[in-house]
């Protein structure tokens, strides 16, 4: 099952890049995808078969614009801080807990955190995320949780778990 | 679409990207520590992807100035550059961490 999915993904990327269905292209794609599958199938994420469920794709389609909105907001925020003559930053490394369990979901959570307002994931230790925050404005753990992970967790749980 | 306007726009875009690359090079030259330089090199790689997409948009125009096609093969350069610069950054990060490469 894992091998079949890996093969299909590799072949799809190959065909999209060539944008042609000439028989040489397809033959080369099958050979290359078989090679990739043989070499890398043990690295393919374990829970990937769950992604065949269309409901997860529906939530992923909601997640993308939701994420892009926060991403653009984050960029404007950082841009203002960078251009401000006094550099109004209060940086530091804080710890937040996440309730997600699968490694795929945690990876995407960490990537989302890195691309949103002034936060950068430095390390993941089990359920704990170490996050570098460019502007620490609260000491309250609940508000920190809400600001950093709270807005992504519900959707990511529906997509990946 | 007007090919002359697109070309002027792309030339201006090139200037902005060159300015950004100059700032990255400043950080690479000055950067007090090795990670500063690594971050700057990573960013330079991402800027190169932007350069490649500017190059890919350079138009082949007909005589009346209507754009008929672009130079899409530059997008392959962009994809390859994005992936190789990512691998390079990961290797440098491992070196910074003080671990051996097969760990």
């Amino acid at each position: 099952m894992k091998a079949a999915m890996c093969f299909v993904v590799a072949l799809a990327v190959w065909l999209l890049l060539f944008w042609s269905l000439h028989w040489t292209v397809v033959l080369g794609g099958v050979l290359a995808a078989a090679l990739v599958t043989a070499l890398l199938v043990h690295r393919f994420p374990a829970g990937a078969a769950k992604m065949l469920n269309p409901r997860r794709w529906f939530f992923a389609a909601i997640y993308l614009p939701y994420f892009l909105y926060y991403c653009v907001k984050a960029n404007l925020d950082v841009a203002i801080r960078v251009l401000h003559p006094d550099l109004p930053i209060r940086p530091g490394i804080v710890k937040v807990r996440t309730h997600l369990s699968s490694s795929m979901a945690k990876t995407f959570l960490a990537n989302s955190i890195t691309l949103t307002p002034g936060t950068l994931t430095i390390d993941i230790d089990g359920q704990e995320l170490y996050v570098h925050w460019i502007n620490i404005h609260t000491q309250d753990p609940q508000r920190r949780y809400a600001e950093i992970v709270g807005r992504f967790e519900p959707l990511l749980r529906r997509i990946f778990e | 679409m007007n090919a002359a306007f697109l070309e002027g726009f792309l030339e201006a875009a090139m200037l902005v990207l060159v300015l950004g690359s100059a700032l990255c090079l400043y950080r690479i030259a000055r950067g007090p520590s090795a990670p500063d330089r690594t971050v700057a090199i990573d960013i330079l790689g991402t800027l190169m992807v932007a350069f490649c997409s500017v190059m890919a948009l350079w138009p082949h125009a007909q005589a009346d100035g209507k754009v008929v096609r672009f130079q899409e093969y530059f997008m392959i350069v962009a994809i390859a550059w994005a992936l190789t610069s990512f691998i390079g950054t990961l290797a440098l990060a491992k070196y910074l961490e003080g671990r051996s490469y097969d760990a």
Partner: protein
Amino acid sequence: MLDTIAYWIFGVGLAFDLLGCIGLVRLPDVYNRAQAATKCVTLGTCMILLATALFGVGRDWPMFVKAMICAAFVLLTSPVGAHAVCRGAYLGGVPLADISVEDVFVDRAEAIRNE
């Protein structure tokens, strides 16, 4: 119409790219620099690639597909790279800037180094 949108997206992407590079020069330590640079330059380059894709609509479909794939790769790889460099910097002993107000990673970093 589509071309006008593409021109605007392209312009905003360029502005973000430049802001990210200014942040790379102005901010005090490697973690803050990685923040500004990664976020702004990733989004800026993705917007440029999106604009490239929009220019390709109807004229050059292979370019559309390649630009979208490239944008996906940049969006996925760039935060991972920043995370790896910052973790490496911390474990390699680069201190936070003096204006930093909090640092809870010290103990965990020590544990990782002793493994």
